[in-house]
């Protein structure tokens, strides 16, 4: 009887742990905010459903008219993350994307919504994929302090741009017109354009220099853009960032003329 009681308590502990985990997956935690999926659902059905669809699979009514296609939340594959390639995003990554919007796509900035509402939306979006319940959250990548840019750093970055074959997709001058550009598709098979790095200051996942460092380190999952985390040292990634910044600056100057 005592053994049975022990077994029961162990099972009960599992039960509590499991239900605890699943309820955790129904929530989002961004700073001091706690988002609730049940509140996010109503917001989703009002604001998001037309593109991302009732099942969250990116097949909403407007989806056929959009390029790039709305995100399929059931795969839990996200471009803009602070976590390594293939890992789930942090809650704050999803919150930032909702807040910022995604440049050069149909995704607008949802800054007009309350911070609490955006947090609730994050919680609800996470319910579309079981991965958020099955996988442990991972630590974000580290972004070391940016060394000051210099002519040497830009030069080294330019050499890396060439040796890393960035130009085969992004083009020799970063205009998004490399020889492999036309062949690119996302993981759902839709054609996708490599970013025109000269097109201005706005980038898909945030415009800061640290943001470019992060994108190069994590890669943009679901797209052909790979992670450079295992191939380059942080200093080399900063060199590449400094070089990419010159492509953007050149475009800015051209715009002013």
């Amino acid at each position: 009887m005592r053994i049975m009681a022990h077994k029961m308590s162990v099972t009960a502990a599992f039960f509590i742990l499991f239900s605890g985990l699943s309820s955790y997956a129904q929530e989002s935690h961004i700073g001091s905010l706690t988002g609730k999926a049940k509140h996010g659902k109503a917001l989703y059905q009002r604001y998001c459903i037309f593109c991302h669809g009732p099942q969250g699979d990116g097949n909403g009514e407007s989806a056929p008219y959009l390029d790039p296609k709305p995100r399929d939340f059931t795969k839990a594959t996200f471009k803009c993350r602070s976590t390594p390639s293939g890992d789930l995003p942090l809650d704050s990554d999803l919150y930032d994307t909702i807040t910022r919007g995604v440049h050069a796509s149909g995704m607008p900035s949802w800054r007009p919504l309350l911070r609490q509402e955006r947090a609730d939306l994050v919680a609800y979006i996470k319910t579309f994929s079981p991965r958020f319940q099955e996988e442990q959250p991972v630590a974000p990548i580290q972004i070391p302090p940016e060394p000051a840019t210099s002519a040497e750093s830009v030069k080294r970055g330019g050499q890396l741009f060439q040796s890393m074959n960035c130009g085969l997709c992004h083009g020799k001058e970063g205009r998004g017109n490399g020889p492999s550009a036309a062949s690119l598709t996302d993981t759902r098979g839709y054609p996708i354009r490599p970013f025109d790095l000269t097109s201005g200051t706005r980038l898909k996942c945030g415009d800061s220099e640290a943001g470019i460092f992060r994108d190069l380190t994590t890669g943009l999952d679901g797209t052909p853009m790979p992670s450079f985390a295992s191939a380059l040292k942080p200093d080399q990634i900063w060199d590449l960032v400094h070089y990419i910044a010159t492509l953007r600056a050149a475009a800015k100057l051209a715009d002013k003329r």
Partner: protein
Amino acid sequence: MKTRYLLLALVTVLAVVSSGRWLANAVAADTSAQSVSGVVKFEGTAPKPTQINMSTDPNCKSSSPATTEDVVVGANDSLEGVVVYVADGLGDRTFQPPAQPAVLEQKGCQYRPHVVALQANQKLNVVNSDATTHNIHPSPANNRESNTIQPPGVPLELSFAREEIAIPVKCNVHPWMRGYIAVFKHPYFAVTGKDGSFELKDLPPGSYTITAWHGKLGTQSQKVTVSAGQSQKLEFAFK
């Protein structure tokens, strides 16, 4: 009181499941040297491989002209790059992944081999032997996607947690580079080489469904029964 019965039922189910697994492992230990082997053939006129234009990257140029590897037919109509494996019949036996990693090499801006097979959670050693930078981008349906840049000589290790036949892998930088990674939860698989032959070694006695998978030509299955100390021959033919 009701919840107590529910918990008791849960415990019982858990106990039965775990003891069943233990039994299965005990049976799996009783193996002798029987195998299933054979060849895979291609029937009809083999499609001509087309030449690949690698001019966008001068570092990709190899001594011999590279051709597509979608369907590779050798002498005697043998079909290369077919994965032959046990699709059913192993019950709920579980297998540890081997310590030795599988190897996928990028050479002459093509994947060597075109189809690589390994066990779930076995390490896949990805090697870049070219003088150019590749990105290695598997697009799984049932595993974690990853996309990593790999300059010459930099080591890279991948692994896949779940069975999947097969994961397409590509290099976005060099769009002609296409290959497959087949992942199994057991060690009974083989990929046909130039002579189209395969051998599934050390199968425990039993009845099995053996499946042959080809990236372009689809799958075929046959049933086979192996008894202790007796080996079986099979032939597959794709059109």
